[in-house]
């Protein structure tokens, strides 16, 4: 009931979630119940690949919330994604226990290698799953809150804000590259074994992670749609369209911006946390400025301010990336650039925009006929 209320007037979202639900049911069945020799069998690596796409889609939804609806072009959302990923990575590192190369039950391998004697304070508690999951939300959320509080209160907007977000992720990349930071430096965190006691190599664990990613995407979509449909969402769009007017009407614009930005960062953190156990590694390259720019391209391709467009864009661009980096590795960046230019020129409202205009022109024709 509640869900149908949220999705009222959101045809794209209804279709997207229906497809998602179908995929979440069918793909595990095709993996588990269909024999390897059958052409319909979906191998486990493909399930994990799709799971990875779903986490990217979740990340794109987070970016669409701030960019599409609030008008803040964040070029630093990769940082929130990576922080969520690191929080999960730390939990997975602690799960290794004494099965590391050095066999030290108290310290992860890289700390033994650095000759550290005890676990740093900021690693405490990460052996507990619930604590790590809390940090997945808390750390990106706190960073976004502080960053947003400082930036939005001093009324930094537009391209200046975008540059600051880019600088933020760049600075974090260099910080995490340092060994002394205690996050594994250049190599990051890897060699994970278990999650909640289940082996990460097992098909069932991988399917569970795939389903968890899909559920997280679905829930995040509903949450964002709920926010957008509320009065808060209308205020958000008002800020995007006429910020100073919104201010004059009596809204504390900076509070709204901080709130939305923080929620979005937390969603990005969740995406990162689901991404890491599926790819098996998290390292500072996830903070790379280029990553954050790529997310923006997914959203632009799919169509801003639609939410389902972000999902579509993230999945299609990443599928294309997988295909083309396999065929012609050097050409991918050029293709991505060309794609972005073409979409900006010819499809300013993205793929979702094409769908909307097809629908309205179809509706008009039908109206004439009737």
């Amino acid at each position, binding site marked *: 009931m509640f869900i149908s209320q949220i999705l009222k007037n959101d045809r794209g979202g209804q279709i997207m979630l229906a497809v998602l639900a179908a995929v979440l049911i069918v793909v595990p069945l095709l993996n588990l119940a269909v024999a390897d020799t059958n052409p319909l069998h979906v191998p486990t690596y493909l399930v994990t690949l799709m799971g990875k796409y779903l986490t990217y889609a979740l990340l794109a939804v987070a970016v669409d919330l701030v960019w599409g609806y609030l008008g803040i072009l964040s070029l630093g959302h990769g940082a929130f994604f990576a922080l969520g990923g690191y929080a999960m990575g730390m939990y997975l590192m602690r799960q290794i226990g004494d099965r590391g190369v050095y066999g030290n039950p108290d310290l992860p391998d890289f700390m033994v290698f650095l000759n550290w004697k005890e676990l740093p304070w900021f690693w405490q508690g990460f052996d507990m799953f619930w604590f790590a999951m809390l940090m997945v939300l808390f750390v990106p959320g706190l960073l976004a809150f502080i960053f947003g509080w400082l930036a939005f209160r001093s009324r930094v907007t537009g391209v200046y804000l975008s540059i600051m977000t880019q600088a933020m992720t760049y600075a974090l990349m260099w910080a995490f590259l340092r060994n002394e930071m205690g996050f594994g430096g250049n190599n990051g965190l890897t060699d994970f074994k278990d999650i909640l006691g289940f082996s990460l190599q097992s098909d069932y664990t991988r399917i569970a992670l795939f389903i968890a990613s899909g559920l997280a995407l679905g829930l995040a979509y509903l949450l964002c749609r709920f*926010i957008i449909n*509320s*009065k*808060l969402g*209308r*205020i958000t*769009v*008002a800020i995007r*369209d*006429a910020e*100073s*007017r*919104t*201010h*004059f*009407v*009596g*809204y*504390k614009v900076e*509070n*709204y911006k901080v*709130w939305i930005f923080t929620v979005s960062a937390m969603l990005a953190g969740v995406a990162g946390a689901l991404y890491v156990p599926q790819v098996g590694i998290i390292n500072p390259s996830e903070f790379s400025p280029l990553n954050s720019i790529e997310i923006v391209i997914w959203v632009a391709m799919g169509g801003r301010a639609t939410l389902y467009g972000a999902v579509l864009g993230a999945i299609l661009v990443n599928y294309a990336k997988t295909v083309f980096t396999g065929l012609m590795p050097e050409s991918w960046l050029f293709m991505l650039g060309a794609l972005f230019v073409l979409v900006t020129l010819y499809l300013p409202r993205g793929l979702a925009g094409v769908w909307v205009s097809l629908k309205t022109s179809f509706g008009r024709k039908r109206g004439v006929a009737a």
Partner: protein
Amino acid sequence: MSEGEGAHFYREGALDTSHKAILYLEGLNVSFDGFKAINDLNLYIDAGELRCIIGPNGAGKTTMMDIITGKTKPDSGKAFFGQTIDLLKLSEPEIANAGIGRKFQKPTVFESHSVAENLELAMKGDKRVWFSLRAKLTAEQKNLMEETLQTIGLTEHYHKQAGALSHGQKQWLEIGMLLVQKPYLLLVDEPVAGMTHQEMDRTAELLKSLAGKHSVVVVEHDMEFVRSIAHKVTVLHQGSVLAEGSMDEVQQNPRVVEVYLGE
């Protein structure tokens, strides 16, 4: 609200207009890089009054509005709303909540929202983030919205996207957005710029119907329009008041004639 509940009550209940005036501007001075935009300005607006303010470009009309609404802080002087509320101590949103609404020169409605949504957003009420996540229109607010739609003549367009309205309709919607905030004082910046004659007449009717219930200050260039609505006109020149009185008195004032012909 750092001042807490008490301050809220004080602002809600205690707009004190017992001495007739609702707005006091006394001895205001503002300069931008040495240019004196406002020069020892003294101006009083009575409660329920409809006042027009005219003056050549650069006379300080907009700067004056900016001071009243908190956008610009003066170098010296006083600005009081009623007897008790010191405008210079309040931020822009606080001033808006205290009951001063401003309509800008360029119509700025929320283009991608419907007419009704525009009014909803502008409505008085709790404007904190968490509250707005669950906010629903109350019966009282719905009544106010219908009433306002009627006043501004947009009842049948309530579902239309604001971006699709005509220029005049946007201006009226913006006035409606001020009205739902139940302001005591309305500041209206050039309401008829770019309007057709018909639209101008309707705007004049609208503004006249608002006076009495609200105090209205209109800044306008169009003399015909000013004559059609105002009882009292204030002429600003070089940041201070040059003349004040009925339209006829003001137009016969030799200093006013000099300023306007000399332009």
